[in-house]
């Protein structure tokens, strides 16, 4: 029986009275790339730290290749590549020194992969990492991970501090490396558009620990945005009901509506359901209108993400 | 690995805290009390003493001068005195105050003593336990002062000597190099008298702040005693006659103007011998209950008597001898005509020492009064079963309820409770700060 690279079982974690997860359970299948998405403060970084084994949850388990994440064996650690937020590495090393240091620990080290990426920088091998920009450093860190060739990669906010060019370079190299389907990746990022380029599944985290796992394509095709012009909403009572719903945090605002956003001249309604089902919800509030007043709006992934999680 | 690290930390913390906490407590709460000053009064014909006390003594306070109510003046029968009376009963000690008050000459035992007579016979020889060879670091090298410098003041020599297995080696200070010629000269002077190297003990008064140089004494490998002097650069060595079976352990040299007693000798059987200056004869003093390894020893000479005072950390003894005559028979042993002993005020307990005995189940110390060498010692509380153990058990029970509040006591918590029951506060502090149970 193949063990999933990562499994989260009945996770509970809180910071004081604020509950981050309650009975969170997830299975990450091998060979897939998962994007961990959610608003600030829902616990993405906390989950990443628990997965990395640097934070012990108050209850529940997190397993990496069967080992408890906070008691992971050295052999299992060799199969896991970590990218820490802000592309942390030992700044006092030079380009060559850091590669020589890391290579000693991994028997399957692939030196040529590191230099393939790092040589693009055009810097001498004795160039210190502390002298590099964030983007240049990200290349070094990615090169080290690629040289390690781990089965599982956990990338905590790989895009932080990178401009579009370095982000694209990072994603392209990663995608090239992952195309054999032998690697599992869990990553977080605030740059949603990049997810389109290589993520298979998305894991949406919401406040209170609610989680949704779905394929990226399925999410993109099944999640809709409908626009309701403001002048179609007659009556102050209805207007205020809609405004109140818009103020709520996203998450089953109504039976078929995940989120409702208020704009100056229109309302936006986000749903996995059909237009007719959304209209039925609105009729339940008192809206009397025929179908043509709801128009579907095309969304890119970022629009869909914001629509799903809410602007605030 | 975690268990090993935890055990190592607990052991380390307990030992370190058992060293530091009692020391800090003593520094903050315990008033250091000097040893009692015990004398024999020729006026009262009994022992009289002064000491500082902890706490309050109403009778002492009544006799005190206001703010010195913690100083007690008493005699061996328990009678209190004020300071002036105390001094008056010790005229051979406080003779200058007596003179100031017009109380000299003083009469005692039918004889009259003026200042000149008192000063002529007054002398103190002190042998502290810390001076013994086994209780101090070995001196690296010593000076042999020229006894005939051709001037009044003694001169510090240009060289120093050390004893090796083969002989005395002199090192010249100007060149910091051995002086082979001098070394050979003095070694030969010793070996010609029968000295067998290596030397077991060297006794002398290694300072030039004295009226003259009386030479040094060396104990050889066979336990023989030799006297060595340097006169005009030449060695003069004499073998000192010893009573049968007596092996010297320590020689104290003290040059006094009256030139009667050069010092004293302590032998391996803890007997004290006075060293007569003119013929280096040994005159014994029967000092029973003197244990040199634990006690400081003092001989106080006055025109009538010699008083031997010796004390350990808690108890002090006095034995009074008639002053040996100048021509006393060598190896004769004088017997004391008066003895007295008492527990000193510093050995009495006060609330601060009781509290310390309660909260510290054992104490680790490095230093001791009787030695200047450091040795780590662990001593249990003087009231372990009556005070300390109940406190430790109370702390353990308290920790049991504390750990229950957090979660049910597990195996680690029981180990911690056991440690606290045994080591008290030394275990409690690291356990609470480490918080491994959380």
């Amino acid at each position: 029986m193949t063990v999933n690279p990562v499994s989260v079982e009945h996770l509970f974690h809180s910071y004081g009275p604020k509950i981050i997860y309650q009975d969170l359970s997830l299975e990450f299948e091998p060979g897939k790339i998962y994007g961990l998405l959610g608003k600030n403060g829902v616990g993405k970084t906390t989950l990443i730290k628990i997965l990395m084994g640097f934070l012990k949850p108050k209850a529940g388990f997190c397993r990496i290749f069967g080992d408890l994440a906070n008691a992971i064996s050295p052999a299992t650690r060799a199969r896991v590549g970590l990218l820490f937020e802000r592309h942390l590495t030992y700044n006092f090393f030079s380009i060559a020194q850091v590669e020589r240091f890391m290579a000693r620990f991994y028997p399957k080290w692939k030196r040529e992969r590191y230099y393939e990426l790092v040589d693009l920088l055009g810097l001498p091998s004795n160039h210190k990492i502390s002298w590099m920009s964030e983007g240049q450093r990200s290349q070094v860190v990615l090169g080290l991970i690629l040289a390690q060739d781990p089965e599982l990669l956990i990338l905590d906010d790989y895009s932080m501090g990178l401009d579009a060019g370095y982000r694209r370079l990072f994603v392209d190299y990663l995608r090239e490396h992952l195309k054999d389907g032998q690697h599992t990746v869990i990553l977080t990022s605030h740059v949603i558009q990049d997810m389109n380029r290589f993520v298979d599944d998305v894991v949406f985290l919401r406040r209170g620990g609610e989680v949704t796992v779905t394929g990226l394509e399925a999410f993109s095709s099944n999640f809709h945005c409908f626009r309701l012009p403001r002048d179609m909403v007659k009556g102050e009572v209805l207007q205020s009901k809609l405004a109140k719903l818009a103020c709520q945090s996203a998450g089953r605002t109504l039976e078929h509506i995940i989120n409702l956003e208020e704009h100056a001249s229109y309302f936006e309604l986000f749903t996995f359901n059909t237009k007719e089902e959304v209209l039925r919800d609105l009729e339940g509030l008192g809206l009397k209108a025929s179908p043509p007043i709801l128009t579907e709006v095309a969304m890119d992934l970022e629009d869909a993400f914001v629509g799903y999680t809410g602007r605030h | 690995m975690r268990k090993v690290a935890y055990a190592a930390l607990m052991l380390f913390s307990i030992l370190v805290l058992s060293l530091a906490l009692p020391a800090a407590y003593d520094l903050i709460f315990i008033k250091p009390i000097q040893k009692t000053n015990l004398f024999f009064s020729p006026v009262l014909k009994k022992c009289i003493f002064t000491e500082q006390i902890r706490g309050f003594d109403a009778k002492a306070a009544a006799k005190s001068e206001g703010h010195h109510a913690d100083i007690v003046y008493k005699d061996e029968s328990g009678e209190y005195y004020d300071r002036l009376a105390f001094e008056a009963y010790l005229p051979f000690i406080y003779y200058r105050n007596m003179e100031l008050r017009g109380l000299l000459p003083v009469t005692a035992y039918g004889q009259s003593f003026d200042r000149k007579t008192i000063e002529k016979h007054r002398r103190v020889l002190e042998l502290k336990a810390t001076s013994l060879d086994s209780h101090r670091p070995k001196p690296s090298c010593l000076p042999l002062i020229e006894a005939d410098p051709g001037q009044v003041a003694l001169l510090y020599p240009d060289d120093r000597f050390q004893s090796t297995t083969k002989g005395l080696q002199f090192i010249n200070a100007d060149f910091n190099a051995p002086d082979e010629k001098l070394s050979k000269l003095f070694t030969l002077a010793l070996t010609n008298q029968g000295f067998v190297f290596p030397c077991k003990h060297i006794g002398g008064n290694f300072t030039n702040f004295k009226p003259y140089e009386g030479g040094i004494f060396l104990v050889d490998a066979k336990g023989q005693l030799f006297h060595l002097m340097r006169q005009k650069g030449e060695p003069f060595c004499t073998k000192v006659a010893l009573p049968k079976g007596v092996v010297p352990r320590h020689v104290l040299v003290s040059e006094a103007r009256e030139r009667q007693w050069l010092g004293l000798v302590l032998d391996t059987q803890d007997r004290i011998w006075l060293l007569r200056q003119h013929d280096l004869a040994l005159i014994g003093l029967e000092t029973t209950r003197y244990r040199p390894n634990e006690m400081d020893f003092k001989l106080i000479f006055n025109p009538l008597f010699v008083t031997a005072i010796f004390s350990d950390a808690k108890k002090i003894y006095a034995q009074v001898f008639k002053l040996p005559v100048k021509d006393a028979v060598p190896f004769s042993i004088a017997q004391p005509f008066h003895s007295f002993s008492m527990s000193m005020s510093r050995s009495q307990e006060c609330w601060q020492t009781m509290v310390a005995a309660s909260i510290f189940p054992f104490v680790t110390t490095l230093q001791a009064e009787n030695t200047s060498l450091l040795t780590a010692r662990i001593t249990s509380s003087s009231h372990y079963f009556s005070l300390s153990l109940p406190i430790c058990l109370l702390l353990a029970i308290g920790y049991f309820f504390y750990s229950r509040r957090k979660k049910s006591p597990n195996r680690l918590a029981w180990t911690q409770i056991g440690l606290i029951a045994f080591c008290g506060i030394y275990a409690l502090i690291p356990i609470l700060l480490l918080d491994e149970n959380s």
Partner: protein
Amino acid sequence: MFNVLAAIFSKEYVKTRTSMLILFALGISLAAVIYFDLNRLFMLDHPEIVWYHTLDLKQIPYGIFKYLPMLSATVFCFCQFLPEMRDERLRISLHLPCPLGLLLLAHIVYGLIFLMALMIAESGAILIILGRKYPLAYLPEAFWTMLPWCLAGIYAYLCCAWVLLEPKKKTKVLGLILGVCICTPLFQHYTPGAFSTAYLPFILGIPLLTVSLFLPALHFRTREVE
């Protein structure tokens, strides 16, 4: 195991070589100060009088060295572990595929080796300087006088490492308390040479405290509360 040690040692060397050089230079400078001070002492007075002050009055002509081992050790510990604490970079090493105990030991042993080498060099230089002017028989006394100061340096390093590695504040305090409690008796004034009979327990404490450092590393590795 050898591979791990070599890798960690080389990493620590790259990280700390500048501070090692500075501390070594400081030690040499101090030895030079003692050298010139001693020369001056012997210039101002006759040698036998200087010997009298040192050998009889127990004055210490190298007293300036007293706190240097502790200061060097503290500075070196900060130079070694502070970069690891910044942004929790130690996580990079903690994720390496080797046992945590071995990893930690490698870091600590590196520091201990450097500090011991530094102290041996400094005290060795001082003994050589003293040996030029004082009898050789005096040198053991000087060695036993300097030894507690060097031991205080070792303990300062280990306790500083504890304070820096440990994430929990109240457990950091334990490291501070232990550091103060163990260093204070090592700096007290004793008869020169008196330490020759008491050094063993202080030396045995070093492996105990070294092994204990596994706990703050473990706390750092798997925190329960941020």
